[in-house]
C-alpha cells in the first residue's frame, strides 16, 4: 500500500488530488463518489449576488480553452445555507474559494465564511476577469502583501493564496503572500488571453478577453510552481493543465505538495479518480511507499549551464 496522504500546513488530505475552483460543483456527485478526492474546492464566491459575464463565455483554442465566466455568485448567505451543508455529507475537507473587489470587502467575506464545515479558505487574488483589464491583487507583491495581511487578521482557518500567471514577479509575489500570512500557495490561475473569429472579426468571448486553461497552460504554471516552492517555505498546490498522471508527477517533483485539476474534468468528468489510481500505481512501480518521497525531488543543479544556453539561443 502506498501512502498517498499529504499535509498542507496541518490540513491532512488523504490524497493530493483535488479540483480547481470553478471547474467543480455539487453536480459532479451525480457522476462519482466525491469522497474519493483529497479535498473539495468550491467555485469562487463573492459577498453579494453577481451575474457573471456576457455569453459566449468559453471557446476552444488548439487543445485548450479560454473562459470569461466571471464570477457568478449567489452571495455568501446562500452559500452558507445551501452549499456548506451539502459538503458536510462528505469526510473530505471543504475549501472555500473567495474573492472581493477591495481588500476590506475581501476580509469581511473571509470572516463570514469562517464557519464550521469549512476546512480552509482559498483566496482568489488572481482572477483576471473581475478587475478592469485583468488587473488583480496578485500581480504585484505590495498589493498581495496588503490584502493577505487583512485576510490573515480576518480568520483562524488555513489560508491558501491563489496566484496569477499574469505577473512578471512570481517569486516576489509568492514571498509577499507568505509574509502576509498565507499557509499555502495555489499556483496558478488562468493566463489572460484572447481569440478572434476571423470571419466576423469579433472576439470569440463576450467579454473580449478571458483566461487560458488546459494543457497549453501547463509548462507556465509548472515553472511557477517550481519558482514558488523555491521562494517560500509554505506548501505549494500546483494547478494548470493537468490531464495525465505524468502531469501530476511533474508538479510533485517540481515541488508541489498537491495538485488541482481543472479543465480536464470537463473533458473527462472522472479524470481525478484515474489520476489518484494512476499515481498510486506509478509510486508503487517506482518502489516508493509514500507520495511525500516524491515532492520537491527535481534535480536542478545545473542552472548556470541552462542560463548560458538560454542566452545563447537566438
Amino acid at each position, binding site marked *: 500500500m502506498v501512502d498517498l496522504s499529504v499535509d498542507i500546513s496541518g490540513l491532512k488530505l488523504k490524497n493530493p488530488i483535488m479540483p480547481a475552483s470553478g471547474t467543480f460543483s455539487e453536480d459532479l456527485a451525480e457522476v462519482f463518489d466525491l469522497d474519493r478526492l483529497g479535498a473539495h474546492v468550491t*467555485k469562487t464566491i463573492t459577498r453579494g449576488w453577481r451575474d457573471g459575464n456576457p455569453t459566449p463565455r468559453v471557446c476552444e483554442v488548439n487543445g485548450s480553452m479560454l473562459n470569461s465566466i466571471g464570477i457568478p455568485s449567489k452571495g455568501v448567505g446562500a452559500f452558507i445555507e445551501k452549499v456548506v451543508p451539502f459538503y458536510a455529507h462528505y469526510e473530505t475537507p471543504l475549501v472555500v474559494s473567495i474573492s472581493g473587489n477591495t481588500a476590506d470587502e475581501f476580509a469581511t467575506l473571509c470572516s463570514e465564511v469562517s464557519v464550521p464545515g469549512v476546512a480552509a479558505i482559498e483566496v482568489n487574488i488572481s482572477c483576471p476577469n473581475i478587475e478592469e483589464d485583468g488587473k488583480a491583487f496578485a500581480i504585484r507583491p505590495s498589493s498581495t502583501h496588503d490584502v493577505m495581511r487583512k485576510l490573515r487578521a480576518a480568520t483562524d482557518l488555513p489560508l491558501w493564496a491563489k496566484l496569477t500567471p499574469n505577473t512578471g514577479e512570481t517569486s516576489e509575489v509568492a514571498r509577499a503572500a507568505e509574509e502576509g500570512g498565507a499557509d499555502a500557495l495555489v499556483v496558478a490561475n488562468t493566463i489572460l488571453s484572447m481569440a478572434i473569429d476571423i470571419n466576423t472579426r469579433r472576439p470569440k468571448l463576450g467579454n473580449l478577453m478571458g483566461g487560458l486553461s488546459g494543457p497549453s497552460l501547463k509548462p507556465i504554471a509548472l515553472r511557477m510552481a517550481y519558482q514558488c516552492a523555491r521562494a517560500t517555505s509554505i506548501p505549494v498546490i500546483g494547478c494548470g493543465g493537468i490531464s495525465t498522471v505524468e502531469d501530476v508527477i511533474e508538479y510533485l517533483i517540481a515541488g508541489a505538495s498537491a495538485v488541482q485539476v481543472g479543465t480536464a474534468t470537463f473533458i473527462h468528468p472522472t479524470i481525478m479518480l484515474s489520476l489518484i489510481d494512476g499515481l498510486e500505481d506509478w509510486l508503487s512501480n517506482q518502489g516508493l511507499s509514500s507520495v511525500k518521497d516524491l515532492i520537491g525531488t527535481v534535480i536542478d543543479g545545473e542552472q548556470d549551464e541552462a542560463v548560458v544556453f538560454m542566452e545563447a539561443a537566438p
Partner: protein
Amino acid sequence: MPERIETMDDVPSIKAFELPLSVKSNEPVNGEYRLLVLAAPHDILKRCRAGQFFHLLCPQAGGETPYLRRPMSIYGFYPEKGELHFLYKVTGAGTRALASLALGDRLNVLGPLGEPFTIADDWQDLVLVARGVGLATLAPLALEANRLGRRLTAICSARHPDYLMSTDYFASLGADVITLTDAEGTSDLDNLEKVIEGLIADGRADAFYTCGSNRMLRLLQTIGERHGIPGQIALEQQMACGIGMCHCCVRPFNRGDRQVHLRVCREGPVFDMMEAIAW
C-alpha cells in the same frame, strides 16, 4: 462540522456515466444529416428520457482536434435493442470528426444529462413544432406520447422536402404529420400560424413542444398567450462541462417579474416555453 441537515442517505446518487460506446453505424440520412447508432448498456438506456442529451467526446480526425465535448440530443433510445441514436448535422470540427466514426470505433459519451420534456396529465393533445435538426430533439417525445396514449400532431418544417426527417417515424407512432417546406412556399410563419390556429379550433392543442428556432418560439408564445396554451422548448447554448459546473451555458429567462440566468445543461435544456426569451 455544521449540524447535518440531511442524513448521509441524501448524498446524490449516480445518474450520469462517462464511458466509451462502440459504433454500430454512422450513415448519412440526407445531404445534411447523419444518424449515429451506438451500442449502449441497458443500465444507461433505461435512464434516458426524451429531451435529455449526451455530451460527446468527438475524436480527433482529419487534422481536426475538437477539444471540448459536444452536446447532442438523444434521438432514440432502445433498451430492448441496446441502442442509443443521435441525429446530427455536420457543422464544424466536432461534428466533422463524428462523421468519421466507423463500425466498431469507440466514442466516449457522458450522460444522460439535463432535464427531460414532461407531459402533464391533462395534456391529451400535443403539438410538436420543429424545423431541421430540431426534429432530433423532439423525436423521442413522440415515442413517449405514444406510450402514454396521447394524441400527437407533428408539424415538421424544412428548407426542402428532401430535408424533412423523421416524418415516417412520427407517423409510425400514430402522429398526424403536417409538412411545411420553403421550396413549396408553405413554411412561412403566417402559414404556420394558420395551421396551428386550425388545430386549436379543432380542439387538438393542449400543449406545444418546440426547439431551436427563434421565430417559432415567438410565434408559439404569441399563440400560447392568446389561447392560454402552455408549452415547452428545448434550447441550445454552447457548453463546456455539460453537467452544471462551469456556468458557461447560461441564458436569461423571465420568472415572474424578474430575469434569471439558468444553465441550459442543468436546469434545461427543456424549459417552460413562456419563460424562454427569444434571441
